[in-house]
């Protein structure tokens, strides 16, 4: 099927990521489905489902970030909660200080926080990018499981730090009294907030699509599959991977900031290895290295969480069974199952 036809289709081949017709339609379906569901829910007055949709969109966005490193760059980061949580804390801390009008981190010359999402996002992108740079630079010396664990290590450091740092609530976390604001729109309105999340999700999807279609994407893919070959061709794999890692960190961070605003709360669980694990699971569930895999994964995962939770006390048991079923019977995750084997990558 797809794999066959694309062999003789230089277009798809060269990029390896230009959606195949079937996959393409499924991607569209996923996005339309999510947005449609949210709007429908809104007009039926089901605010909960609107929030759920926002939650899916945000988690998916974080997963899209991870997928860039994990799926396309082969960098299995078990520490993306670090970026996600960092983003969350940027939003939380900023709002906190804006609320009590105290300087950020209690340092005199620092600004008194802000409740403007735009500025918060900017800061988030900056700090999570920086953190990504540091962690990536150190971690990329390693590979395979060593990489998994070293990234985990950094996340754990942040986790324990946040837990025992009283200033911002430690393990109790930090409530955000009012959602941060955007000019012109009311972020406290569920549907509006959903659209903010959905738009950012789509941007990050579109971004990674362009990225992977580009020369950088080609280099990244090769850096993943055969670094020696890439070096022999005269391209040093390290910076390529590092760049991908940083971008992925930024996306995850931004998602974190949104998540904090969605829950009006940021806690250390956003930094915990459980969350890093959950992200990985979502990416694999959706289909590693499939552009829209993370979205598919997030939809299934979050819906199961919600739905099963209502059905039985032992919902995690059934969640486990479903996940197991997917690995065993749907090669290449949901996307592999729905859209067939991925080409080239």
């Amino acid at each position, binding site marked *: 099927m797809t794999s066959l036809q*694309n*062999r*003789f*289709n*230089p*277009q*798809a*081949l*060269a*990029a*390896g990521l*230009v959606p195949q017709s079937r996959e393409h339609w499924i991607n569209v379906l996923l996005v339309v489905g999510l947005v449609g569901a949210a709007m429908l829910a809104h007009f039926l007055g089901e605010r909960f489902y609107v929030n759920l949709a926002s939650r899916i969109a945000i988690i998916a966005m974080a997963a899209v970030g991870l997928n860039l490193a994990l799926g396309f760059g082969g960098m299995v980061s078990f520490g993306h909660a670090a970026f996600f949580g960092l983003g969350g804390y940027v939003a939380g801390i900023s709002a906190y200080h804006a609320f009590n009008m105290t300087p950020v981190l209690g340092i005199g010359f620092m600004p008194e926080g802000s409740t403007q999402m735009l500025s918060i996002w900017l800061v988030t992108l900056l700090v999570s990018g920086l953190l990504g740079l540091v962690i990536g630079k150190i971690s990329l010396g390693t590979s395979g499981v060593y990489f998994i664990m070293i990234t985990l290590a950094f996340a754990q450091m942040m986790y324990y730090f946040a837990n025992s740092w009283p200033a911002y609530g430690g393990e109790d976390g930090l409530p955000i009294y009012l959602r941060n604001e955007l000019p012109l729109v009311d972020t406290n309105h569920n549907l509006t907030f959903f659209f903010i999340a959905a738009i950012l999700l789509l941007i990050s999807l579109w971004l990674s699509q*362009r*990225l992977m*279609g*580009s*020369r*950088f*994407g*080609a*280099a990244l*893919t*090769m850096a993943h*599959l*055969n670094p*020696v*070959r*890439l*070096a*022999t*061709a*005269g*391209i*040093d794999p390290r*910076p*390529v991977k590092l*760049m991908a890692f940083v971008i992925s960190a930024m996306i995850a961070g931004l998602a974190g900031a949104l998540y904090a605003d969605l829950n009006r709360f940021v806690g250390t669980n956003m930094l915990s290895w459980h969350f890093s694990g959950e992200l990985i699971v979502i990416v694999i569930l959706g289909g590693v290295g499939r552009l829209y895999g993370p979205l598919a994964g997030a939809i299934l995962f979050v819906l199961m969480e919600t739905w099963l939770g209502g059905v039985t006390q032992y919902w995690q048991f059934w969640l486990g069974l479903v996940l197991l079923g997917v690995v065993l019977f749907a090669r290449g995750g949901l996307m592999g199952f729905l859209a067939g084997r991925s080409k*080239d*990558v």
Partner: protein
Amino acid sequence: MSEPLLQVKQLNKAFGALQATRDVSLDLYPGEIHALIGPNGAGKSTLISQITGNLPPDSGEILLQGEDITGLTVAERAQRGLGRSFQISSLADELSVRRNVMIAVQAIQGSSFRFWKPVSSDASLLEPVATILERLGLSDRAGTLVAELSHGERRLVEMACALALQPRALLLDEPMAGMGSEGTARMVKLLSELKHEVPILLIEHDMDAVFQLADRVSVLVSGGVLAQGTADEIRNHPAVREAYLGEETT
């Protein structure tokens, strides 16, 4: 004779007790094929790896067009025009033949930090790739995943990647291995054309091919250079016959 393009001076490399490269000096002149032969484990691949930078030499230096590249990384050397093929082929199995070659083309065209323009519609990438595949008779395999190629076909792709780099000097580690008579014949033809574009340092155990192609031959035995000379000198060199050729006659 003109300036040597690649010079190897007094190179040494030891693995523990084993001296894999012993005071090896050799040079590669424009327009020639310089064959490197020697018994198994003589240190040929090790030598290549040191020239390309995959292995650091213990001592000695390597000059490319007079410039000392001993300290450079693999990537940097490749950028300066050093192309190689691996003895045990090293390709991305999960990718199509085309994409394996494309990386090389992309590399010589410079920056891979271009995030926007899709390669799928990038003629400046696709055309050179097509030409090279054509030249190696791989055109109809362009879309095939490398994993699905036969052994011999993979070796051809190896070559294609090396060529795509438009190297100034080409280091080939047993390109004919597993090639089959016909493939060998094609390869011989290809190399003899190629050497006018780029000088070749050729490791090969297929003596027919070597003696057909080589302008000069260096014989490596247990890390050191045993003899250097024209094909005929080497063919009748007693020590070489004894150490390497055996009673094989051509």
